[in-house]
Every structure is written in C-alpha cells, then in structure tokens.
C-alpha cells in the first residue's frame, strides 16, 4: 500500500489502522517493522496505537526512526561485528555507540596525521570532512561511486580526504566507538549477514528517507509480505546535505499510490508556493502579512507587538511559532524580555552556552587545575553564588581576600577555603577533597548531588546536565584515562552538538517555539500563526557545498557528468520550494518579516525573499513631501539610460537628487522602456563610499517610502563584493570555505607584526608594509601577472597571504579582487549579476578605485546603465587609498555629463573663497580641480561678502584665545549654532579638545571610535566596576558619565562623589544608583553577551542607541571567545576603545540628530569633515607644515615613497609631490565648503613643538588668497 498525501491529511492514521488490523489478524508485532522520521514521530505513532488498540497485550513493538533501528540492530547483534574484527586487544561486549562529540575528537586527531598542504581552511577542515563522510554514509556510496564524484568535481583534496576518513574509520574500529553515522556501515554489514526477521514494513514520511535506508528496504524487499508507505511526493525537505532522496515508491513496489487530495486553505497555499518557486513565478502575497524594517531590533519589536496583540485576542502561546535561521543571542534576549514563554530549539549549540553548565565546567576546571593559576575572580563569584549558594557580599569579600592573598602570599584557592570556618566553606573543602583525584563523571555527579536541587525550575538545565554526563561517560568509556580531565573539559567546551538524531528536543507545552524551518518541519509542529523572520537572510538557503563536500553531487541519484552554478541554484531552489511548502502546511496564517541589517549591522541578502512578489511601485500621491528639483538639478532627470556622470559641487543637494532618481526609476518616470522591462528595487544598485552613507541612504528611503517592501541594493563596494562572493555558494569557486572571515584591523596588525618580527624588520615599519600590501593588491588587479621587484616586500606579502589562507581569512582588498575574479572567470556568475543590475548609481565617484570601476563595468555589461555622481574637487583620498580620480575623469569624457554647480549651503563670501582656491591653484600651475565654478542659489544662500576671516597671529596662544573667544561669543548668541574646528591631523584633536574643555566648552570629537558611543562607554565602565567593586574611583567616573547622559540626577552624582567606602558596602537603600549597581554586581551572567545586553537594555532601551546594544554585546562576546577570562575580556574591550571596527562590527552613530550635540563644538580632521556642514567653521594652525602648496618646500614622507616603489609604474618624486599638493588644494576646498555662515582660517607665526616655541611658516594659502582678492 502506498499513500501519497501531505501532512494535513489522515495519512498516518490510515497507516495506524492498517497496523492494528494486522495485529488483530494475529500477526506478531515483532514481525512488523515501523519506520518513522524521528523520535518525536515515533512517540506519536506509539501513542496513537496505544489509543486505538483494545485492551490486552499490544506486543513487542518494533517502531523506530531509521537511526534508532540501526542503533538497536548494532547493539543486539554486536557479537557478529566484534568477531569480524581482527584485533583482540580492545574487545568489547558492549560497543561504544557514542555521540558525535567523541567521533569529532577522534576525527580531529586523525586529520592532524594527514597533510592537507595548501588547504585554506584549517579551522573548518573537521567540519568539512564530517559533512563529506556523513554524505558518503547517508548515500551509501561505495568506493567506485565516490571516485566518480571526485572526478566530476575535479577535487584537489580527494586523496587527503580519503586518507583522513580511512584513518578515522580504522580508529573507530580500534576504539569500538561508533557514532550514528558510522553505525550505518555496521548496520549494512549486519543485515547482509543475518536473516531478516520482518514480514511487514510500515514507512511514514517516506519522502524524507536517506538512500542508506532505501538500500536496506531494497535488500529485505524479497522477504516482505507487504509494505505500507506514506509519503508526500511534494515533500523531501531534507534534500541536500541532510541526505534525503526523492524515491519513486510506485516504481519501487510496482503498484499505484493512493493519492489523497485535500482542498483546504493550507494545502492550496502550500501548493501555490511550491509551484510558483518551481516555475520561477514570484509568489503573490495572499493570507500573508509582510513587513520590512531597516534594523533587526525594529523588526523584533514589531514581532513582539504583534504577538502581544494575538495573545490579547486570546491566542495561546502554543498557537504561535517563530521560524528563523538566525536563532542567536540577540533574538533570544530580545524575545525573552517580552515576558512570553519561549521554547528555543537550537540547531546546534555548545553545552556551556547553558549558564549552569558553564559554572559547573568552570568549577571542574578549578578543581582539576593543580596550580590554581588562572582563576577568574568574576567567574569564582558566579560559582560561589550560583552553585555553592553564598550571598553576594560574602562572595565578594572572600574574593577580595583571595585576590590579595594570591598576589602577596601566592596562596592557593583551596588552601584559603580550608582555613575558613563557615559551614559553606567547610562543606566545599570536604567535597573538594573527596573528588579531586576521581574521574570527571564522578566529580560531576558529586557536584550535582551536593549543589543542584532537582526541581522543576531547572528542568531545562537538567536535560543539558544529562547531555553533559552522557558526553563524559562516552569519553571515559572510549578513552578511559587516555584523555586527561582538563583536555576533556576543553573538548566539551568546544564541541558543538549538532544534527544529532539522538538528541531529543522536547517541544514544551504552552510556549512559543522558536526554531529553524527544518526542525518545525521535522517535528510537524502545527500552529495557527507562523512568524518567518529574517526572510532576506542567506541562512534560509542552506549551504550544501564546501571545498570538501558537495551534497548534490554526492547524492546517490546524481547522474550528470559535471556540476554547474545553475545546478546548484536549481537544486537549492527546488529544496527551498519543498521546505516552504511543508512549512506552509503547518500554519493557518503566515507573517513574513525582514530587516535590511542583521543584528551585527551587516547587510542581509539572498534569502527566500527573492521568491516573493513585493509591492515595489512608488506612487507620487503617497509621498508626504514631493521633492521638486532645482533648475540645475533638472538635467539629471532627463536620463534615459546609458552612461551619465553627475558633477555635483559641495552643498548642491546630491543625495536628494539621487533619492529622487531612485524614486523616478521606481515610479517609471524615467528608464521606462521595453528593452529594460520592469525595474524592481533589486535591479537598482547604489554604491556609496562609506558604510554610514549607505545606512543613511537606506534610512532616508525607508522614511520616505515606508510602504516599499523591498529596498534597492545600497551598499559600499565592499558590501557588494561580499555579496558576490557569498551568494549562491560562489566562494566555493574560489576555494574558500563558507565560514571564511574578513580580517579586521586588529588581527591584521598582529599578523603583520608577527611577520615583520619573523623577518627581522623593525615594527615601526608596520604602517609602510600595511599600506604597501594594499597598493600591491590593487596593482595586481590592474596588471595581472605583475611581480614587484622589492624582494623583502614580496617576502612579507607572500607570508601575509599564506597566513590569511591558512586561517580561512581574506582582507578588504581581496574582497574586491576576488569578487572581480569571480565575475571575470565565471560567465554564469557574471550573467546572473548582469541580469540583475539594470541600473548602477555610484556616489562619491571621485574616490572610486580602479577595481571598483572595473566591477561597475562588468556588472553593467548587459544593460549599460550607469550613473556616477562625484566631485573631482573633493577627491581627498587618493594619497592614502587606491582611489583613482583619473578613472572618473575618463568616465566623464565618455558619458553624458550633467553639472550641478549650485551650492545652497555656504554664504556667498565662503563660495567666493572656495572658487578662489581654484584660481589660486591655477595661478600656481597646479591642476587639481575640475572646471566647475560654484554658484549660489538665488534667494537661498546667505549674502555675506565678509563671511571668511583670515587671521595670522604672532603667537600660538593668541590664535587659541581668538578661536575660543569667538566660539564662546557665537554660542552665547545662538545656542543652536553648530561649530566645528577642522584640523590637519588626528594628533591635534586631543590637544584642542583639552584646550576647549579647560575653558568649559563642551566638545565632541567626530570619530567612530567605540568609546565615543555611550552604550560602549557605559557598558565598559560597569564591567570594570563589576571586576573592581572596591575601586571607589571607578564608580565615581561611572556616575559622572551616567549623569551626563541624564540617567541620574545631580543629587545622586553628589552622593556618589562623596562616598569613601566601596559602593556595595554603603548600604544606602534610598539611592536608586546603589540598587542598580548592586543588581549588576550580583547578577551572575555566565555569558558576557547577556550581561552587556542587560546593562545596555537597562540604560538605552527605547533610545536612538538601542541598536548598538546587541552590537556592543556581540563585540564583548567575540572577544570573550579568545580570552581566558572575563577580566581579560574587559581589559581587551578597554584596549579597543579607540577602534571603530572590531571583527567587522561597526556601531551605528547618529551624530546629526543627536540632541546632546547642542552647545557643543565638534573637533575633527579636515578629511573627516567631508559630507558634514556647520554654521561656523574654524580652520586653525594652517602652517606650511600642515598645508603646503609649495613644491620646493614639500618633503616627501617615507610612507609615500615606499608605496611608489611597490607600483609597476612608480611616480618620480616631483610628480608625487605634485599629486600630494594637488590633494592639499582639494582638502582646503573641502574644509572651506563645510561652513554655512562664517569661516575662520588662522595661523600663528610660532608654535610650541616638543616643548619649545619655534618659528613657523604660514601656509602659502594666506598669500595666495590675498593676491587673488
């Protein structure tokens, strides 16, 4: 009997009835094999039999999941296997049918014995090989079949992979240790050598079986009187790396299937989705609620609100499920704070992610650490409070004593505990004495017995504790004493438990299940409301390909002789269609949620959103404020395809114009022609120079068109390059593993330091090499096979590249280089993006690099619609980046050029000054500028011919006093005025900040440094307080900062400033601050993420900074992974305070709208000021050293010279000087055009340098301006 029906039908009930009929006919239950998909379905099947069966003996039921059958079969017939093994040394009566944790450990050691030279991903080699090995076993591939696939894939490491897997197999035999994947081999041996005992076979969810099971069924088919198979021909959601196979059961049994068709709403919807995706038609949204957000926190807030509404309407928790591929800490923390009951079912996790287990493992580490050297006091506090049961203050006092005695007397922790008289300590010491030399499992059991009360509150923890115990027993049984206790703890801490069919996550009653789509399908978890989150995240489409495995080609049924990108896309699409189909069968109503950014602030792309049809039309009637272009802007909107360059001067409204351009494209006012066809947001690519500009752009579009469900692709060129590398598994064409990372500044510096040290180069040359590597990569992209003649540099470069490869890392230059390479070398990838990129709009085109420009050329190859906006006059990055102004100049020549020369920002006198800089350059025979002359917008700009003041002072102090007095004066008259001091170097910023602070003027240094972000600063200060609660100074600094942020009042500030005992001992119960700090001090979060998240949430919930809470928490968590202790993590956080990027996480800064900027003077470099505008601008200290315009006086820096040496066509010194001075002109131009009302440029005839007043030449700028006026 075959039943082809989906999960909404009574398919399983029909099977149950047939089963009971057989029993009633007198068939012995031992003769009936029932195979279901997993242990949950097994229990459901048994329960239904129990319910439907009459009273009496039901029998000896043989109901299993496939892996359950395998496990039992191996266990019951082990003797046959043991007898077939030659060695007699390690004979076992009970085989070690262990978890993946043990086999991962064995595999890891085997891999170390195989030489994978040149393989670029040592970190994920184990993961790769495990996938390969499980695919081989799931698909029951024999040697010939494996060889065939190695050839199809032209694998480079097939020999090494084979060797590693063989070694592993041998080792598992030696140890008699077999995980569920390895057991498949034993099972095959057994069923082929033993008599089959079954006469009937029931199989439910037949569409999800793996080939290894099918092979078994084929083998016993001849003995079986009847098969009863239930399946869904549209199912098979586990295709791909989970190994399912699409079986034609009609052919297998030679009989027709009974098809049960239903016409209920769910099935109709599910079929529609399935067919739409398969036929490449976009899914229309019916019965689906779709919501898009910019940031993930906004999205989750809305999800919580929606759930709140449902609950208020009487919907039960169990009627709701949440599906997302990103079940991370942020999601958990965000959902948990709502107070609803959630049941998170993780795909994979480390055991010590459980807080209690974390403390238990730390405790075990302390017990087994003989020298007690690295005990973290913070962790010890957690152990003492959470496990041993000490009160907070007692724990803190003990720890303080321990810290002191450890430092002064080198005292061991347990020696100190022994000296204590209190009962808690006595008991602790007794237990320590009892267990210290015992096996780990014994130690753990004793700790649990003595310190963990088995009650309902910790029932979830107990499941995890038992998992931990099982792991330890497995290790002890397989290795006995071979693996030391500390190594074992380390192994457990670092093993991710995943995809283990034996782990039985129980779905809790009356809670909202949060899970991956696969688990929801596997458990057939039916709910009324299903929230699909992060639908635009690539995690929805699983990774089925890696350097050492290809789930599609390794399928038993693979017939083709090659594997193309198209195959991957088609198969992934087919599997996605099946997955969504199955998920849709499980819910009445579906919500689709997406956000442009994930919780790390990185862009989401390539999710299942591409299957849906979203409303992308912009209707003018819905706009709140239509943008009306100025006369000089209008020409931009005559665009009707092809190449266009827009030269836009500072303050000409370029961003607004670009916004309007997108609006007009989407509303079909422009580019509406048949050749291009429909333009959807995904067909528009906008490239910005800075990440912040991309974020800002998206925000503006979202604000303006809230109804737009899908945004255009707006990113930096690096963001786009990352997408090209990641999307559709393209990275595998580059030999990269899917979890490759981009090296951040910190890692790059330490890597380069290491290399320079190895080669005996002084580390003060680090910056030289750092920028030279970048230059060299750009040269390689330009000239292909170019070989630099500087031998020492090449050594550094090659070592650097090798180190990156070894660690599965790439750098930012590689990102561009590799994405270009992918497009150049793979016509299918190129075609994919060319079809997508109907129009490309580039911002800040004057800063575009050669590679960026090449990428744009490649991407626009099909439609050839490119608009590049920029201002050559503002090209100020060419001396320290690879930007290529000439490229933009060339583009301007070959494209239609529109000039937007009206600047409405600056007062007329300031405009004149900027235009005079152009004249000044011409007079000096330089050519840094375009021919564009800025003009005011009639009736808009302030008319003030005297808006610019040039001042030269005798002494430095006079200049400083002038600036400060002017600022005081301005702020006293206009408290809303924005003022900025623009400086030549970063070095000067701190000095000016101090000067202003001394005069009680509030300052703000524009910098993306973490410490300038309030979330980072407050969290760091509180973390430091938690580590050192006895340090009174720290708590005083903390209250000052919190006071500044208006979190506490002046009375609290005064109170804390006056305390002279540690705050937690003050016992001032009236002070909220006392309670708040005590709360954090005694709140023992095992994970630093949760602690930081809680602090952040406490102070910054519902503020503009909310978005940064999860980012700061993630930074802390990432640091923690590489640090031994909590204390070291906090120290490291302090160390990176001046960085703006950690592990590619950048914080969101909202400078412009920040109210706390009122009455504040911003201090920044001239470079940083680009893109900003201020009412009053000061450019002081304009000495010749700082701003040289005289080629004879300019001294080249070592850095600049070194970079030239790396280039294929280096500039001679004179040309290089000319280039730098030309950039100085443009830098001055940028600085001048920041000012709206007044501009003050000054210099002094002397400056204090190295504590000595020295005469100083003023910049030629003053003279140049004077001569023009």
């Amino acid at each position, binding site marked *: 009997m075959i039943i082809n029906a989906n999960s909404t039908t009574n398919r399983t009930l029909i099977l149950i009835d047939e089963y009971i009929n057989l029993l009633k006919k007198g068939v012995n239950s031992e003769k009936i094999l029932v195979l279901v998909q997993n242990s949950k379905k097994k229990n459901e099947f048994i329960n239904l039999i129990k319910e439907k069966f009459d009273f009496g*003996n039901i029998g000896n039921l043989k109901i299993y999941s496939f892996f359950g059958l395998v496990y039992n079969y191996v266990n*019951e017939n082990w003797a046959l296997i043991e007898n077939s093994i030659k060695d007699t040394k390690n*004979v076992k009566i*009970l085989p070690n049918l262990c978890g993946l944790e043990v086999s991962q450990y064995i595999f890891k050691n085997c891999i170390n014995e195989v030489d994978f030279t040149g393989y670029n991903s040592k970190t994920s080699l184990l993961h790769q090989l495990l996938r390969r090995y499980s695919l081989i076993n799931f698909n029951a591939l024999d040697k010939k079949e494996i060889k065939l696939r190695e050839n199809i894939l032209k694998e480079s490491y097939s020999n090494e992979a084979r060797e590693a897997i063989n070694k592993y197999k041998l080792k598992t035999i030696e140890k008699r240790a077999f995980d569920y994947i390895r057991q498949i081999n034993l099972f095959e041996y057994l069923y082929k050598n033993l008599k089959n005992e079954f006469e009937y076979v029931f199989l439910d969810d037949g569409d999800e079986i793996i080939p290894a099971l099918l092979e078994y069924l084929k083998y016993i088919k001849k003995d079986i009187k009847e098969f009863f198979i239930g399946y869904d021909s549209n199912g098979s959601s586990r295709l791909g790396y989970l190994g399912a196979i699409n079986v034609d059961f009609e052919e297998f049994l030679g009989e027709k299937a009974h098809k049960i068709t239903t016409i209920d709403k769910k099935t109709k919807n599910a079929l529609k989705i399935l067919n739409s995706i398969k036929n490449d038609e976009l899914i229309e949204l019916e019965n689906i609620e779709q919501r898009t957000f910019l940031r993930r926190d906004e999205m989750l807030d809305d999800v919580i609100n929606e759930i709140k509404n449902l609950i208020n309407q009487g919907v039960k928790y169990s009627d709701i499920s949440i599906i997302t591929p990103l079940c991370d800490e942020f999601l958990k923390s965000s959902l948990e704070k709502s107070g609803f009951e959630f049941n998170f079912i993780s795909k994979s996790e480390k055991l010590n992610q459980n807080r209690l287990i974390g403390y238990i493992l730390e405790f075990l580490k302390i017990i087994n650490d003989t020298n007690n050297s690295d005990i973290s006091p913070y962790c010890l506090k957690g152990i003492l409070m959470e496990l041993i049961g000490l009160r907070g203050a007692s724990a803190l006092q003990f720890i303080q004593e321990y810290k002191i005695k450890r430092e002064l007397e080198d005292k061991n922790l347990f020696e100190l505990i022994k000296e204590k008289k209190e009962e808690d300590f006595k008991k602790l010491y007794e237990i320590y004495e009892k267990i210290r030399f015992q096996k780990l499992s014994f130690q753990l*059991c004793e700790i649990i017995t003595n310190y963990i009360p*088995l*009650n*309902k509150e910790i*029932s979830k923890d*107990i499941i995890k504790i038992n998992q931990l115990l099982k792991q330890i027993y497995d290790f002890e049984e397989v290795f006995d004493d071979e693996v030391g206790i500390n190594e074992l703890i380390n192994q457990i801490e670092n093993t991710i438990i995943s995809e283990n069919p034996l782990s039985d996550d129980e779905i809790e009653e009356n809670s909202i299940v949060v899970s991956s789509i696969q688990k929801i399908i596997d458990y057939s978890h039916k709910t009324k409301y299903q929230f699909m989150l992060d639908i635009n995240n690539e995690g929805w489409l699983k990774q089925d390909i890696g350097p050492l495995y290809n789930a599609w080609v390794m399928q038993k049924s693979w017939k083709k002789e090659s594997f193309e990108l198209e195959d991957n896309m088609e198969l992934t699409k087919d599997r996605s269609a099946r997955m969504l189909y199955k998920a849709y069968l499980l819910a009445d109503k579906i919500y689709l949620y997406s956000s442009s950014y994930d919780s790390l602030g990185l862009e989401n792309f390539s999710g299942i959103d591409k299957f849906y049809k979203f409303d992308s039309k912009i209707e003018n009637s819905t706009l709140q404020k239509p943008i009306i272009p100025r006369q000089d802007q209008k020409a931009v909107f005559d665009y009707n395809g092809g190449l266009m360059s827009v030269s836009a001067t500072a303050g000409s409204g370029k961003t607004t114009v670009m916004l309007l351009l997108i609006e007009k494209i989407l509303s079909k006012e422009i580019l509406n022609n048949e050749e291009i066809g429909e333009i959807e947001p995904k067909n528009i690519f906008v490239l910005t120079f800075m990440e912040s500009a991309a974020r800002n752009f998206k925000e503006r579009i979202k604000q303006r068109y809230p109804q737009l469900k899908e945004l255009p692709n707006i990113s930096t060129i690096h963001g786009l390059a990352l997408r090209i590398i990641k999307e559709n598994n393209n990275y595998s064409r580059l030999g990269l593993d899917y979890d490759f990372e981009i090296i951040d500044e910190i890692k790059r510096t330490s890597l380069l330091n290491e290399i320079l040290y190895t080669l005996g180069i002084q580390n003060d040359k680090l910056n030289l090499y750092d920028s030279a590597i970048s230059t060299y990569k750009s040269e390689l992209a330009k000239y292909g096979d170019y070989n630099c003649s500087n031998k020492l540099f090449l050594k550094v470069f090659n070592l650097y590249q090798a180190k990156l490869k070894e660690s599965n890392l790439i750098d930012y230059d590689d990102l561009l280089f590799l994405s270009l390479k992918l497009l150049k070398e793979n016509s299918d990838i190129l075609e994919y993006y060319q079809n997508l990129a109907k129009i490309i709009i580039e911002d800040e085109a004057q800063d575009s690099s050669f590679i960026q420009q090449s990428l744009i050329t490649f991407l626009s190859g099909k439609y050839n619609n490119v608009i590049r906006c920029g201002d050559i006059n503002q090209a100020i990055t060419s001396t320290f980046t690879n930007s290529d102004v000439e490229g933009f100049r060339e583009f301007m020549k070959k494209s239609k050029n529109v000039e937007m020369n009206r600047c409405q920002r600056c007062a007329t006198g300031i405009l004149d000054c900027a235009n005079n800089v152009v004249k000044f350059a011409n007079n000096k025979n330089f050519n840094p500028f375009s021919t564009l002359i800025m003009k005011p917008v009639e009736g808009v700009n302030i008319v003030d011919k005297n808006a610019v003041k040039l001042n030269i002072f005798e002494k430095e102090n006079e200049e400083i006093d002038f600036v400060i007095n002017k600022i005081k004066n301005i702020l006293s008259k206009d408290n809303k005025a924005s003022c900025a001091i623009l400086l030549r170097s970063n070095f000067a910023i701190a000095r000016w900040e101090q000067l202003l602070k001394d005069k009680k003027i509030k300052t703000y240094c524009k910098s993306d440094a973490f410490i300038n972000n309030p979330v980072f600063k407050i969290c760091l200060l509180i973390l430091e307080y938690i580590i050192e609660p006895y340090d009174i100074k720290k708590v005083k600094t903390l209250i000052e900062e919190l006071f500044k942020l208006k979190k506490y009042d002046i009375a609290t500030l005064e109170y804390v400033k006056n305390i002279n005992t540690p705050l937690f001992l003050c016992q001032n119960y009236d002070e909220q601050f006392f309670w708040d700090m005590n709360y954090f001090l005694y709140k023992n979060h095992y994970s630093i993420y949760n602690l930081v998240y809680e602090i952040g949430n406490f102070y910054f919930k519902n503020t503009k900074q909310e978005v940064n809470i999860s980012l700061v928490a993630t930074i802390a968590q990432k640091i923690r992974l590489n640090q031994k202790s909590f204390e070291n993590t906090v120290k490291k956080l302090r160390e990176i305070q001046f960085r703006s990027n950690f592990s590619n996480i950048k914080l969101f800064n909202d400078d412009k709208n920040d109210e706390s900027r009122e009455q504040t003077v911003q201090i920044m470099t001239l470079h940083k000021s680009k893109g900003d505008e201020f009412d009053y601008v000061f450019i002081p200290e304009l000495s010749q050293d700082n701003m040289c315009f005289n080629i004879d006086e300019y001294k080249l820096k070592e850095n600049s010279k070194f970079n030239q040496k790396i280039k294929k066509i280096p500039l001679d010194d004179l040309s290089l000087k000319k280039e730098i001075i030309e950039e100085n002109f443009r830098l001055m131009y940028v600085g001048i055009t920041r000012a709206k009302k007044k501009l003050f440029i000054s210099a002094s005839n002397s400056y204090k340098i190295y504590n000595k007043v020295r005469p100083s030449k003023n910049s030629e700028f003053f003279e140049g301006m004077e001569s023009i006026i």
Partner: protein
Amino acid sequence: MKKIDTFSANSLKLLDKSVLEFENKYLYNLSIMKKDKRAILGQKFHNLICFYIKNFDVSKLILNLTQDEQKSWQKLKDYLKDKKDDFIKTEYSFLIKEKLNSKPYFLTGRFDAVYKKDGFYVIYDWKTLNIPKNPKDDLQSIVYLFCANKIFKTEKIKLKYLSIEKLDSFEIPFINPDYYKEKLDKIILKHFIK
C-alpha cells in the same frame, strides 16, 4: 496536570514509595543519569547471555572480562548450556493496555529471557545485584507475572530471578491476575487521583 499513563516495574516502585519523587522523575524528568561499575558489569553479562542464547560465538567477547568475571561466566554458561535451546525469547519488550476506573493505562518492561519447556513458561531475570528481599511481593514480580499472563495467555508461568555471579535463584509461581491487578491499581491510583 499532565498524567503518566505508562508504567514500568521501576516507576511503580518509585510511585509506591513517593508520588512526588515519581512525578519528579517521570513527569518532569528531574533525574540524573548515573552509571556505576556494577550496572555496567550487569549490562555486559546481560549481553553475553543474550548473544550466547542467540548462538553467537562469544569466545572472543569474554576476553573483555577480568579473570574472576570469566570464571563467573564459565559457571553461568555451564548452567545455561542444556537450557539454551529452550529459550524462546531474549530481551523481550512488552506493552499491555489495562484500565482503571475506565481510564486506560499501560504496563511496559522487558523480560531478559523467556524459557519454555513442557508448556510451562519461565520468565528469567538476571540479577547482578541481590535478588529482591521479598521477591513474591516485589513489584517487578507482580508486573512481570501479570503481563506474562496477558502475553502468553496461560497461568503456567513462573518468574525466576537468577544471580549471575552466585547462580542463586528464586522462583515465583503465578497466583492469579486479579490479585496482581488489585495491587497494581492501588499504586497507580495514587498518581491518577492526585
């Protein structure tokens, strides 16, 4: 409150002792998986017996045992040698549906081995630890005999506890189903009425 509807000899023993402990362990899974050396040794012997009865060659397997354990095994093997062919089942799991005040409940468990000779069924239970103090009234005996009667549909049943190491044994004859049912219902009611 959710109820447990399936009981084993061990769970009934705990229920008889304390409803709270029973519910903590079986309803809320509040128990820690502990393994001790005796339990592992017991499991080894169970497997050996099973393999031996199923006619697998166990000569290599016993290399895993200590010398003392090998001696015990030798004695046990000698004991089983003549009976071997009359064992009809090993490791036999069962599931029996019963009712209490019209509410269904289930009894489950696993016989170590079932021996049949001359129409008489002997349910064997291998013991590594001591044989129960009052074997007749032990809940394991009650559950096993009650269920064996349902499975084999005869009253010609005995339960035999056999100490693996000492080869001591104790036989309990079947009394009558109502006697067992009454005892079982009384205990199960403690959970059902709560």
